[in-house]
C-alpha cells in the first residue's frame, strides 16, 4: 500500500482512535508564547492540572514585545502584564522560557528550526496559525486555539479529525528576481483564500526542491493564508544539511539513524492525493498584493485588476470592498503606487537569508524621502548573525531602523503600527484590513521588492533601480 508523507507522519502519532471520536494525536513539540497562553495556564491551575511534558514544551515572547528600547521597562501596561504572566506561568509549571534578552528569544517559528528542535516526522503545534512554517522540515505542524493549548499542556495530545491531503506541485524554475515569497503568493492566488480548507498541503516539484530551507519555510508559513491546516515538504539533503550540527539535532550514530528514518518519510511513488493543483514556476513574476486578503495579488508588471474580472458576484463584491479599503483604482500600474512605510520582518521573511537579500538591494542606496523603513530580525540570533555580517550597518546607513526580534509591525501589537490611511510594503503574511494598525493599508511583497520599494518610494524591483 502506498502512503503519503502526511499519512506517514500522522500514523506514527496516533495514540488512540476511539470509535466515533476523532483520533488522539501525540504532540512532539509544543511552542508557547505570551498572547494565546495565559487563559490556558489559568485553566490548568483552576482544574489542578500540571503540564504533562515540560520537556516537550518551549516558551518564548514574541507577539507584543517591544523591538526598540529594550533597556527600558515595557511602556504598555497590558503588554507588560502579559509578559509578566508568561514568566510566572513558566516558572510555576516548569516550562523552559527564552525570555526577552536571551540570545534564543525570537518569533516562535524562527527559533524552533534554528535550535534544531523542529525535525522531520514530528508533530509541532503552537497557539499561532503560522505554525505551518515547521512543515518545511517534513513535520506535521499546525496552529491551535487557546483551549487546545490547554489540552496539549495537560495531555500532550490533541483530538484531530484527519484532514485531506492535497498536493501542490510546482514544476519549472523560478525566474530571476522571483523568491519563495512570490512563489507562495502565486500558489495562494491559484488556490484562493479558502481553497486549502480541511487539507494538509504537500508542496512538491522541481521549484520546491530547488528552494533553500529558509525559502521552504516561507512557503509552508503561508499555507494558512490559503486556508490549509498545514503545509509540508518531504525532507531531503537540503533539510539534512540545515539540521546537521544544530543544538538539538541528533549527533554521531544517532544522526545516521535519524537520517535513515527521515529518508523513509517521502510520499511513496504512485500515492494519490485527495486534490492536486499545478503551478508553473516559470510563469511567476515578483508579486504584490493589491487587496485585503493574501489571494488578491498580481505581478508587479501588472495593474490593479478590475473587480469584474472575478467570476462570481461574491468575489466581485469582495474585490470592490478591498479596493475601497485600499483606496486603489482599477487600471493603476502597480509600480505607480507610492508607499509611506516599508517593513522587512516576520516569521515569513525575517530570517537571515531574507535580511541578506534585502541588504544587498539597499547597500549604498538611501531610503526614499518620507518613507519610514524598518528591519525586525526574526530572532535574537538572526539579529546577532546579521550584525556579525555588517548587515545592520548597511540598513542603517540607508536610513532603515534596525530593531530587536519580535512580531512587531506584522500585527502591530507592540505599538509599531501604520497611521490611518498609510500604505506599507511589508514582507509579512497578512494584508487584512487594519492588520498593521486601524486604517493601515498593507501590500505583501518579498524582501527584495520591499527593499527596492523603500529606495524608490513606490513598488519596484531591484532590477529597476
Amino acid at each position: 500500500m502506498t502512503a503519503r508523507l502526511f499519512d506517514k507522519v500522522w500514523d506514527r502519532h496516533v495514540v488512540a482512535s476511539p470509535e466515533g471520536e476523532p483520533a488522539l494525536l501525540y504532540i512532539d513539540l509544543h511552542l508557547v508564547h505570551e498572547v494565546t497562553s495565559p487563559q490556558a495556564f489559568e485553566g490548568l491551575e483552576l482544574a489542578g492540572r500540571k503540564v504533562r511534558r515540560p520537556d516537550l514544551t518551549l516558551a518564548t515572547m514574541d507577539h507584543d514585545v517591544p523591538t526598540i528600547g529594550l533597556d527600558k521597562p515595557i511602556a504598555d501596561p497590558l503588554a507588560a502584564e502579559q509578559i509578566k504572566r508568561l514568566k510566572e506561568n513558566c516558572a510555576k509549571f516548569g516550562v523552559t522560557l527564552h525570555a526577552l534578552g536571551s540570545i534564543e528569544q525570537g518569533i516562535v517559528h524562527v527559533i524552533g528550526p534554528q535550535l534544531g528542535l523542529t525535525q522531520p516526522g514530528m508533530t509541532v503545534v503552537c497557539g499561532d496559525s503560522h505554525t505551518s512554517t515547521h512543515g518545511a522540515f517534513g513535520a506535521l505542524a499546525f496552529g491551535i486555539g487557546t483551549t487546545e493549548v490547554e489540552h496539549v499542556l495537560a495531555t500532550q495530545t490533541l483530538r484531530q479529525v484527519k484532514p485531506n491531503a492535497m498536493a501542490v506541485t510546482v514544476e519549472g524554475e523560478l525566474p530571476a528576481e522571483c523568491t519563495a515569497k512570490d512563489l507562495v503568493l502565486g500558489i495562494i492566488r491559484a488556490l484562493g483564500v479558502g481553497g486549502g480548507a480541511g487539507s494538509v498541503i504537500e508542496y512538491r516539484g522541481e521549484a520546491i526542491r530547488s528552494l533553500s530551507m529558509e525559502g521552504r519555510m516561507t512557503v509552508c508559513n503561508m499555507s494558512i493564508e490559503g486556508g490549509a491546516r498545514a503545509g509540508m515538504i518531504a525532507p531531503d539533503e537540503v533539510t539534512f544539511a540545515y539540521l546537521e550540527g544544530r543544538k538539538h539535532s541528533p549527533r554521531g550514530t544517532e544522526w545516521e539513524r535519524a537520517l535513515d528514518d527521515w529518508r523513509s518519510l517521502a510520499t511513496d511513488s504512485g500515492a494519490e492525493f485527495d486534490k492536486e493543483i499545478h503551478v508553473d514556476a516559470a510563469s511567476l513574476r515578483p508579486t504584490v498584493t493589491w487587496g485585503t486578503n493574501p489571494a488578491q495579488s498580481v505581478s508587479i508588471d501588472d495593474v490593479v485588476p478590475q473587480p469584474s474580472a472575478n467570476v462570481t458576484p461574491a468575489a466581485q463584491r469582495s474585490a470592490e470592498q478591498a479596493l475601497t479599503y485600499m483606496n486603489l483604482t482599477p487600471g493603476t500600474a502597480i509600480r505607480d503606487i507610492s508607499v509611506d512605510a516599508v517593513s522587512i520582518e516576520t516569521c515569513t521573511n525575517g530570517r537571515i537569508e531574507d535580511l541578506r537579500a534585502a541588504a544587498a538591494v539597499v547597500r549604498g542606496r538611501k531610503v526614499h524621502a518620507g518613507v519610514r523603513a524598518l528591519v525586525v530580525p526574526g530572532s535574537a540570533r538572526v539579529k546577532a548573525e546579521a550584525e556579525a555580517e555588517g548587515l545592520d550597518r548597511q540598513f542603517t546607513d540607508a536610513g532603515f531602523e534596525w530593531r530587536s526580534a519580535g512580531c512587531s509591525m506584522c500585527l502591530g501589537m507592540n505599538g509599531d503600527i501604520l497611521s490611518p490611511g498609510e500604505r506599507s510594503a511589508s514582507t509579512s503574511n497578512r494584508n487584512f484590513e487594519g492588520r498593521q494598525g486601524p486604517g493601515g493599508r498593507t501590500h505583501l511583497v518579498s524582501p527584495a521588492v520591499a527593499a527596492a520599494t523603500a529606495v524608490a518610494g513606490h513598488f519596484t524591483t531591484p532590477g529597476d533601480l
Partner: protein
Amino acid sequence: MTGVQQISGPAVALDRRDVDTDQIIPASWLKLVGRTGFASGLFSAWRADPEFVLNRAGADQAKILLAGANFGCGSSREHAVWALQDFGFQAVVAPSFADIFRTNSISAGLVPAQVSEDGSARLFAALAADPGAEVVVDVAARTVGIPAAGIRESFDLADFAQWRLIEGLDDIALTLRHEASIETFEASRSPLLPAVPQG
C-alpha cells in the same frame, strides 16, 4: 462550559465572505489575559461606521450571526470566538468556516452551523425581508430555520462536535480517559526525538 440544545432569537446578517479574525477582534485586544471583556472589541473597526449591521437597532439582542463563506479565516486567536460570545452570539451560520475558527468555536461552545450556499442565500433573503425575524438553531436536529418565513435548512456538524456542544463537555477530561494509551505511546516514542532541556 454549559451545553446547548437549541438557540432561538434575533439574528444579525453580515453579508461578507472571508471575514478574518483580525476584523472579528483586532490584535490590540489580544493583550487581555482573561476570556471575557472582548465585547467592545468585536468588529470594532467596522463598528466605527454607523451603518454597520451591528450598529442597527436591536443588534445587541442578537444571538445568531449569519455570515458569508470562509468565516473566521486568518489567525488562530480563540479571542475571536470569545468576543462573539461576549457580545451575545451563541451561533454563527455560514456556508463554510476556516478550520481553526471552527475548532475554537466548538471548544468554547459557540455553534458553527455550516449550511449550503443556497441555504445561506435563502436565510439572507428572509432576514433582509424581515430583519427582526426569530431564527432557530437546533443543534440536536442540525437545522437552522426562520419559522415566520417557513424556512428550515440543515447544517453540517460532526457527530462528536455535536455531542460536545450539547453536553458542554470538558475535552481534557474526555481525553484523560485514554491516559493509559498515552502512557503506552510515550513509552514507545523514539529516543532520537528532541527534548527541551529543563531548568
